[in-house]
């Protein structure tokens, strides 16, 4: 893997610092007594997915979100990426109160957050290159600047040779790396990943975690949800453990 240059091409981190409006300069994420209940098909509040969840994540932090399936990890991540709003309590992400923010303000917030999903969620009608370029195009970047950044990050992830292929033509590991490239192409201040290694073999999983560690070293706050206790053991960092929608351990 060639060395990643923070001074070349990428200027998204500078843009982020110019456009972000943090109300807590050192906090990326803050959950305050958050409860979440998904609505039923009739529109009524259903069973609680989260109860009384409180924690805070600082700038440049690395956090494991640990717990079995159904513990509420994905709900926490969905709140962090403004995909849902809390039923009660306060969720503040990059200074924006998710529960109170106007709907029109959320797209700009989402563009500042990198998200990696377990099932990759690449757009099947685009090449790997265009998938990676998508966030920059949504942000309105000029095509010349996009070309430079995308080529650079694909080189960094050893995917330059696969740039023209569609997602279906790539292996699981390659798709995951494309998804990561798409998540970090804008140099987000916060990167969240939901079970990112579950579809990968051991080699690809280690490579992915090493990549996250490198991103974290470069200043990105990272939150990784996993049900595997092996990963936090191999890569020690702060661990928040969830069970049945509650935090049971958060040092």
């Amino acid at each position, binding site marked *: 893997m060639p060395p990643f240059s923070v001074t070349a091409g990428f200027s998204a981190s500078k843009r982020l610092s110019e456009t972000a409006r943090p109300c807590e300069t050192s906090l990326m994420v803050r959950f305050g007594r958050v409860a979440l209940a998904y609505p039923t098909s009739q529109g009524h509040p259903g069973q609680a997915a989260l109860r009384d969840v409180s924690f805070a994540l600082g700038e440049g932090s690395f956090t494991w979100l640990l717990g079995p399936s159904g513990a509420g990890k994905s709900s926490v991540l969905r709140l962090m990426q403004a995909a849902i*709003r809390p039923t009660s309590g306060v969720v503040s992400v990059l200074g924006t109160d998710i529960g109170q923010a106007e709907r029109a303000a*959320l797209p700009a917030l989402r563009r500042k957050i990198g998200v990696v999903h377990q099932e990759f969620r690449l757009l099947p*009608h685009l090449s790997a290159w*265009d998938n990676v370029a998508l966030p920059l195009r949504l942000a309105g970047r000029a095509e010349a600047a996009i070309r430079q950044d995308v080529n650079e990050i694909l080189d960094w992830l050893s995917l330059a040779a696969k740039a023209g292929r569609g997602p279906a033509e790539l292996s699981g590991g390659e798709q995951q790396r494309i998804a990561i490239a798409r998540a970090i192409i804008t140099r987000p201040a916060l990167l969240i990943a939901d079970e990112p290694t579950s579809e990968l073999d051991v080699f690809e999983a280690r490579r992915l975690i090493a990549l996250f560690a490198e991103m974290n070293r470069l200043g990105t706050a990272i939150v990784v949800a996993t049900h595997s206790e092996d990963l936090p053991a191999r890569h020690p960092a702060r661990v928040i453990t969830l069970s049945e929608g509650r935090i049971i351990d958060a040092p």
Partner: protein
Amino acid sequence: MRREAGGRGDPIGLRGALADRLLVALIAAMALFAACAVAGQAAVSQLAQRWQQGANAAITVQIPNPSPARMESALEALRTLPAVREAREVDPARMAELLRPWLGDVAGLPLPGVIELRLADLAADPVLIGDKVAEAVPGAVTEAHGVFVARLAALARALSLAALGVVLLVAAVAASVVVIAVRAGIAARRDSVMVLHMLGAADRDIAWRFARRTSWLALLGAVLGVALAIALLWALMQLAAPILPEIGWQDLPWAGLAAIPVSAALIAWGATILSILLWLRRLP
């Protein structure tokens, strides 16, 4: 090498999601109906105008030996009838002028006095009006050919309005077809739309991508439909040529026909934007 599939203009893959051929075919069929309705409306409107001119004098009354007293009696009798809106004596000099092409110089020729009537109610019975005036002025003769023409003109105006109604109805159906196609497109590409939404695409950006595609398809379909309609109208004109030799291309409502593709594209654009925005409003 970088694959161009999808491309930056179509990240949702709408080219395969919007049942392109079906949408184009349906819009083409509706544009064909609309074009025929527009052409029919223009033709009927012209006929109505022509007939209306002929129906200006709905009824004429001829008074033999038109002494001033007899003319006054006739006018007085007619003006008392509720069905008569206006009764006016035709100037004898104008009468002579009108008859000159047929009779030459009519000086000295005994001509009847003529009264033109305009009716308040086209459904009024001209026979009763004739009876009334004949009672007041013996020998008075009433001709009511204009009533029939006026009724034809009214019918033509109604048909013209009906044609406009058909155009509006076709526009509404076209908008509905586009909405149904867009909903099917969203269902087919829901995951891609959700990914775009979560990557931070604004609602208007997603809606614009759909609208650009549907309005292009609507424009294409409408151009095809109007072209077919023009071919059909040309064939009809060929059939009508022996009885209407003056009819030609210049009689087609070109402005109205040209407006159909533009309107179709605008309707598709509006229907798509509205439909997508309403769907996206359900997302956070």
